[in-house]
């Protein structure tokens, strides 16, 4: 009975989350992205507080993943490279880039539960989370661009800017 109640409460919370995102986007348009981005930044900074600093992006990603796992956040990701890439880590003019695949994602599930579109404001929360966590762990600015939002997985480009 406890599990049934928890499941019902969780579904309600997810629908509520989807409704808030949908309503906020309707009311204030693209500014909704900034709100969820900042919420993600705060979360990323808070949860990664005390994590050892590193300049190595792969180690930083491992630490970020550990932070998510430790806190039971269903936002797990994995670095990915296509057949024509020599390495997972790519250097570009913008900075160091890594493609990430997100499979199980509580945001995507919430959006589907409510029937809301992907790539909206809630998806920006993950962008913010990475920006906050990597600011703590690497001391550098970063961005997380949604390349593709799929039904079963999302494909994103993480760019960590060079140190000034």
């Amino acid at each position, binding site marked *: 009975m406890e599990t049934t109640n928890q499941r019902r409460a969780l579904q309600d*919370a997810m629908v509520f989350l989807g409704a808030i995102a949908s309503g906020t986007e309707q009311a204030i348009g693209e500014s909704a992205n900034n709100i969820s981005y900042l919420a993600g930044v705060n979360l990323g900074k808070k949860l990664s507080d005390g994590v050892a600093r590193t300049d190595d992006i792969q180690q930083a990603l491992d630490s970020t993943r550990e932070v998510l796992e430790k806190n039971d956040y269903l936002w797990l990701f994995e670095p990915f490279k296509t057949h024509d890439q020599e390495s997972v880590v790519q250097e570009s003019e913008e900075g160091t880039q890594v493609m990430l695949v997100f499979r199980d994602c509580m945001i995507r599930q919430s959006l589907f539960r409510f029937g809301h579109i992907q790539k909206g404001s809630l998806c920006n929360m993950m962008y913010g989370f990475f920006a906050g966590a990597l600011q703590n762990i690497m001391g550098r600015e970063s961005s997380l661009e949604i390349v593709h939002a799929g039904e079963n997985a999302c494909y994103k480009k993480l760019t960590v800017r060079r140190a000034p």
Partner: protein
Amino acid sequence: MSLEINVHEQSCRGCELCIDICPTKVFELDEDKRLCVVKHAEDCIACLSCAYICPSNAISHTDYHAVKNFYRDAEFCQRMGKFL
């Protein structure tokens, strides 16, 4: 787990929607047959967008990680309970 993608030749109409939507360029058009074929299965991230968008339901995947509908899964519900 070794993901496999299959395009059912008799169903495929060669509309190229799968080619357009795939973020990692897994498919290509076979010009002779006018069919979409799998070129780089190893690049597939199993987003399943190709299977969802295909109008003739010609694309299928096997051995992939299906996302957990955690709100229906008792174990995940318990783990997520702390957010409630």
